[in-house]
């Protein structure tokens, strides 16, 4: 008894009050279980392990705190719990355990196993009462958690081929492992389960798929298993699905209709967050995959709010990042994943419905980079079209933020390294139907690309001589309709690469999109000078010359394309077009145009609207207006995008009037 008194005194010394939160979701061990139907009389009863504590801990803690689980010790026997009793009371009271960073009101999410205030108090009273064991007959039937794969026997198990040796000392360490998937035919994946191999040191894992060999190449270039560095953009979530692992959590299998396609030659890219244990550790994670026989019939979309313009001054205690997006279609939110590094303190994702109702999707008031989690709704959250999704992240880059990786604080900019900062809210949604998915994906792509441009600029600032970064950034600038940005980066890339035909060609393409035609012609000619057999350069040069009204010169380039690549659909179509529609009659050759256009239509299997349009123009040029109308109608049946659709309709109207289409002569207008 004397020992118990000492222990209590020590407890009072070492435990400190945790943040107090109201729990709105009573679990199965709600206040009723404590007070009992008889009312206050039961409250004087000292809780016992067998009756009160064992079922509670088995339910909320057993997933990790079992023999062989990911936690450092078990909590499933009286001896084990007794040995850690004061610690259990303290960490449940401070809400360090069970680990759940989001507000208890958010969700409900899969795997959320909170203790409510009454349950926490029950544990405290059990400890204060002297950790009484109680009647063994009260013990609930034992539960076994950790035996084998929690999702059942996987269809395929892959293991990191070479184990990684983690150093004994130091702080968080990130390593990207690339695990080839030995599938010999296309499979459809319903889920995967990550087993850390060494749960003592593996803190969380973020898994992506790379359908290119790019990640593998980085792995091979780095000595030892995996590589240290950045996740490549080619490694991504598969078709709108999250893949991740946090201790104690297993994402359930997807319904069959949501499986994702796994082609051959795909690698799993596993970003693994490890914490040294004090001795060298062997880390060799395994991943079990679960397949479906049938392809998916529904595909989610992955939305991402966030900024890549983050730039936090050293010492700034409150730097705020916000972003928002208005849903163009109805959706159901399946899951959420907030992401930031060490300087973020408070992260908040909200939805504002069209009627103004505001709801909290996720709020983490004490952001901890080391507990990254995908929050999957137990049942999806429906949000109507017109709902605004928004995020607000608050960062503390002062010395008062103890997790600040820089001491003293330094300016922090956007970047993937944990010493940089990020701020994203990933949101997985399902649309009601396929057309809605197309609309959402197209609109969202524009938003994400515009933000990714910012990220590329930051990366390029760090790696100004990386031509791959310049080229990727330029392509993104073209995608978002900012050709001048593309020109600037292709110029840098060209300057770095020196004498390079593709670099001149890329720059020429960006210049032509920017409307800088004379400069584009110059670059294409440079490319051709280096590589006279560069068909694409001849083709694009022809296109620019055509736009300048230099029809004969353009035709010469297109002929060169056809000579170099007789099967080039674009070369054939362009040449046919010039011969059919040239402003000056002398430059036209209707017969040859028809021959060429028929070849193109054959080559493209009558599935290309532009090829059919060229054929229509060729027939009209030859005076065969019925056939011209037929080709135009066939083109329109393929629902071409604008402005082509309108142009084809205008030409069809000409053909109906028995008139050919003749291109305007830009040269004559000068």
């Amino acid at each position: 008894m004397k020992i118990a008194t000492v222990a209590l005194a020590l407890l009072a010394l070492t435990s400190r009050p945790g943040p107090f939160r109201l729990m709105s979701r009573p679990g199965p061990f709600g206040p009723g279980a404590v007070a009992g139907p008889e009312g206050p009389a039961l409250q004087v009863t000292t809780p016992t392990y067998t009756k009160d504590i064992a079922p509670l801990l088995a339910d909320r803690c057993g997933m990790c705190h079992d023999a062989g689980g990911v936690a450092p010790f078990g909590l499933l026997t009286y001896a084990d719990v007794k040995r850690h009793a004061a610690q259990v009371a303290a960490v449940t009271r401070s809400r360090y355990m069970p680990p759940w960073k989001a507000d208890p009101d958010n969700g409900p999410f899969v795997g959320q196993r909170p203790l409510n205030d009454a349950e926490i108090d029950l544990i405290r009273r059990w400890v204060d009462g002297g950790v009484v064991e109680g009647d063994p007959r009260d013990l609930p039937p034992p539960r076994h958690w950790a035996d084998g794969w929690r999702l059942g026997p996987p269809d395929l198990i892959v293991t990191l081929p070479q184990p990684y040796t983690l150093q004994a000392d130091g702080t968080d360490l990130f390593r990207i492992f690339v695990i080839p998937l030995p599938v010999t035919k296309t499979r459809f994946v319903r889920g995967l389960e990550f087993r850390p191999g060494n749960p003592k040191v593996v803190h969380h894992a973020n898994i992506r798929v790379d359908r290119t060999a790019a990640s593998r190449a980085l792995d091979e270039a780095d000595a030892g298993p995996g590589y240290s560095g950045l996740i490549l953009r080619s490694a991504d979530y598969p078709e709108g699905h999250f893949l991740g692992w946090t201790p104690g959590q297993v994402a359930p299998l997807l319904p069959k209709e949501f499986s994702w396609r796994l082609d051959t030659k795909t690698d799993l890219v596993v970003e693994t967050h490890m914490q040294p244990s004090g001795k060298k550790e062997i880390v060799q994670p395994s991943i079990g995959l679960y397949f479906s026989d049938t392809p998916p019939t529904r595909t989610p979309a992955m939305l991402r709010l966030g900024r890549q313009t983050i730039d936090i001054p050293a010492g700034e205690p409150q730097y705020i990042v916000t972003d928002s997006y208005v849903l163009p279609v109805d959706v159901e939110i399946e899951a959420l994943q907030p992401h930031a590094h060490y300087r973020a303190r408070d992260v908040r994702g909200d939805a504002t419905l069209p009627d103004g109702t505001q709801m909290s999707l996720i709020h983490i008031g004490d952001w901890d980079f080391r507990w990254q989690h995908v929050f999957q709704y137990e049942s999806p959250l429906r949000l109507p079209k017109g709902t605004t999704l928004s995020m607000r992240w608050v960062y503390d880059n002062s010395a008062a933020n103890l997790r600040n990786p820089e001491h003293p604080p330094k300016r922090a900019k956007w970047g993937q390294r944990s010493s940089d900062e990020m701020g994203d809210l990933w949101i997985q949604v399902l649309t009601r139907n396929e057309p809605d998915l197309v609309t959402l994906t197209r609109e969202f792509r524009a938003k994400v690309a515009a933000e990714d441009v910012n990220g590329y600029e930051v990366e390029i600032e760090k790696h100004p001589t990386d031509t791959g970064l310049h080229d990727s950034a330029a392509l993104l600038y073209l995608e978002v309709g900012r050709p001048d940005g593309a020109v600037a980066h292709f110029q840098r890339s060209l300057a770095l690469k020196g004498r390079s035909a593709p670099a001149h060609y890329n720059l020429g393409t960006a210049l032509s999109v920017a409307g800088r035609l004379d400069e584009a012609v110059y670059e294409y000619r440079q490319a051709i000078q280096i590589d006279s057999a560069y068909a694409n350069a001849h083709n694009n040069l022809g296109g620019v010359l055509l736009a300048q009204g230099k029809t004969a010169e353009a035709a010469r380039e297109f002929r060169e394309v056809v000579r170099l690549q007789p099967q080039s659909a674009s070369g054939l179509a362009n040449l046919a077009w010039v011969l059919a529609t040239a402003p000056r009659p002398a430059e036209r050759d209707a017969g040859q145009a028809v021959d060429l256009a028929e070849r193109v239509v054959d080559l493209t299997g009558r599935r290309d609207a532009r090829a059919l349009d060229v054929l229509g123009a060729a027939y009209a040029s030859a005076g065969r207006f019925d056939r011209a109308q037929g080709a135009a109608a066939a083109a329109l049946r393929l629902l071409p995008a604008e402005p082509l659709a309108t142009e084809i309709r205008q030409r069809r109207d000409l053909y109906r009037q028995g008139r050919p289409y003749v291109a305007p002569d830009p040269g004559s207008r000068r």
Partner: protein
Amino acid sequence: MPRLLAAFLVGMLALGPSAHAAPQVRVLAVNGGQKVDPLAAPAGIKAIVFLFTSTDCPISNRYAPEVRRLATTFGPKGVTFRLVYPNPAETAAAIREHMTAFAYAGVAQAFRDPTLDLVKFAGATITPEAAVVAAGRVVYRGRIDDRYVDLGLERPAATTHDLGDAIEAILTGQPVRHPTTQAVGCYIADFAR
């Protein structure tokens, strides 16, 4: 002022062993299992550093490289390092295995303290926690450094090295600036139940 303080401390130290009715602190040697006096030290030892630890406390284990560094730095200067395993459930065999895994062997001696004799003498409550004894008195008790602030809150690197600073102060005859600090880790209290 500093000179006064130092003088006071020196006086205290001189009083130490004789005036102090040394309690019968007994621990078990990991090798051999016999009862020994953990405060006994060969001549020339200026301070004994006790490190309360356990085989399965993650924070305790993460400090192993730092403990080895400190022991290697201060060992030649007359400071001896002693690991104390207060958990009665940890057997001598498990402790020997632990010492091998974390490369403590040869760096520090190890004792078991299942009756918490030494824990109570030092006032330790946590693993890992250090107690520095000089001339029979505990002159520092607390954390090794400030890397861990609370469970779930840790700095990327320590900013103050309390244990090392305390040892330096003792070796140079200076007062220990912060004789007690709060350690963060696993509760020793639990082992006593």
